[in-house]
């Protein structure tokens, strides 16, 4: 690895903590970002000569803060003198101050920085864009590519989002226990959204999408390091790791979706699976199940199966039943129906999803599963109608292409009724 790559990795990993501390110091997002930027420029000059400092985060906070204060001083020549405490020379106390700026508060600082990005007034895509810009430090250009919009449009979106969060005025006092746990929940949801944005493959550059998934995992691990004993955060990190582990097998050479049961499981990332399984195990020891833990546990059952036919569908059905109970939603029921179709057959599954037709009338996966179940029951004409509806609702070309495969199969089968393959989610 080159020296620049080392420094780059160090700056990337220091960013959330350093920007968070500078934000608390300056109480202004733009100033905190500029200060960090300036500190990075100085690091690129100084570190290759002097070697990296032992405490890179502390160094960046200190240098960034001083650089921004210099800026204030320079500006002050034309204005009234700033108050003494702002310009007083702090060089003697620097190590001490860096420590104070950093360690005692860093958990709430980083949490606040993340929380600012997921302000409820911001639409999901803007929350993600803001987090990628402020916390992860991705360039506007990279973010624009991920969302398939022009750089100028993304710049505008981020600027507007920043103005909105500045107006929202998130308090800088140390949060109470309830508020802290609410913030953790909101941040976890934002990280999950970020991951899904990368995972759902709704078009765009594959590399950029993988970056989003990697970034989400990095943030989830960071959140978990701040809240080591929080089983839902273990669950979140595990869920992302276990899902992302399948990425190398999810698309074929032409970019088409490969179903879970058709994936070449040798391509799954064993390191990510092992880490995900460990985290699920750790989380469940707390006996406080939550949605992320349960979804991670379901992903873990799939990861345990060396072949699709080894999948413990009974266990998946049980886990979905708990999840349904904890967080009732038609989408969860729909997913559970896949497990039910494996355990009790397509008729039982179909009976389970029919009542959802009203709520999920605009949902691609509802019609995809309905068509697959009808096809298994030999009700080909109805299956075809459902598949047509699914194609009409497909979000991506891959989704549509995937359903067309089923339709082709139906047409082929109507000519020769033998050899029908099971289809599910």
């Amino acid at each position, binding site marked *: *690895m080159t*020296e620049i*790559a*080392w420094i780059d*990795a*160090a700056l*990337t*990993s*220091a960013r959330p903590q350093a920007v968070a501390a500078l934000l608390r110091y300056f109480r202004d997002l733009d100033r905190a970002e500029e200060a960090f930027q300036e500190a990075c420029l100085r690091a690129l000059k100084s570190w290759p000569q002097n*070697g*990296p400092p*032992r*405490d*890179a985060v502390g160094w960046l906070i200190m240098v960034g803060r001083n650089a921004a204060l210099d800026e204030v001083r320079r500006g002050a020549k034309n204005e009234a003198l700033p108050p003494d405490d702002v310009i007083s020379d702090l060089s003697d106390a620097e190590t001490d101050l860096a420590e104070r700026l950093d360690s005692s508060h860093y958990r709430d600082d980083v949490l606040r920085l993340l929380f600012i990005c997921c302000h409820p007034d911001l639409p999901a895509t803007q929350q993600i864009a803001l987090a990628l810009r402020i916390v992860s430090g991705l360039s506007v250009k990279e973010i624009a590519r991920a969302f398939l919009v022009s750089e100028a449009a993304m710049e505008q979106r981020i600027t507007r989002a920043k103005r909105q969060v500045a107006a929202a005025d998130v308090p800088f006092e140390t949060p109470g226990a309830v508020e802290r746990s609410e913030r953790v929940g909101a941040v976890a949801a934002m990280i999950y959204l970020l991951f899904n944005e990368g995972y759902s493959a709704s078009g765009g550059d594959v590399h950029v999408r993988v970056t989003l998934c990697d970034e989400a995992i*990095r943030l989830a*691990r*960071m959140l*978990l*390091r701040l809240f*080591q*004993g929080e089983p839902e955060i*273990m669950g979140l*990190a595990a869920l992302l790791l276990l899902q992302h582990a399948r990425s190398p097998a999810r698309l074929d050479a032409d970019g088409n979706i490969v179903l879970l049961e058709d994936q070449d499981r040798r391509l799954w990332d064993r390191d990510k699976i*092992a*880490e995900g399984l*460990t*985290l699920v195990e*750790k989380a469940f*020891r707390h006996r406080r199940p939550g949605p992320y833990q349960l979804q991670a546990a379901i992903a873990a059952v799939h990861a345990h199966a060396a072949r699709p036919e080894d999948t413990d569908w009974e266990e998946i059905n049980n886990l979905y039943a708990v999840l349904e109970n904890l967080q009732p939603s038609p989408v969860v029921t729909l997913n559970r129906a896949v497990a039910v179709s494996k355990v009790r057959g397509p008729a039982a599954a179909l009976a389970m999803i029919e009542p959802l037709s009203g709520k999920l009338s605009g949902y691609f996966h509802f019609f995809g599963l309905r068509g697959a179940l009808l096809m298994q029951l030999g009700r080909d004409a109805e299956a075809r109608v459902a598949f047509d509806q699914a194609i009409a609702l497909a979000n991506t070309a891959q989704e549509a292409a995937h359903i067309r495969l089923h339709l082709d199969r139906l047409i082929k089968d109507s000519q020769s009724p033998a050899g029908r393959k099971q289809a599910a989610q």
Partner: protein
Amino acid sequence: MYYAILCYHDEAVVNAWSKEEDDAVLAKRAVVTNKLAAAGKLGPVARLMPTTAATTVRSGREPLVLDGPFAETKEQLLGFYLVDCQNLDEAVETARQLGRDECGAFEIRPLRLFWPEGKPA
């Protein structure tokens, strides 16, 4: 004499490496370990999962099971090499080679007891 070469680094930095960068570090180190292995000087080698995967058990009358690593530190124990060296100089040289162009730290700890087969030799 057996020495453990313990690898310490900021795991947030290591996690920020791209796969290519990670592979490059492993490839660079493999040059050193291959040489050691060929000379019959290399024992077990391990890379540890992130500290978020760790669980700590504090012994006592009522042992305490805690999530996370034993201590919150700026740099974390991320893995280790076990090497058979003539003396400390050789162990230091080995650590130096392993860490060439890197910026973490290696702690060299001579072994007091070693059961490669899981029982006294």
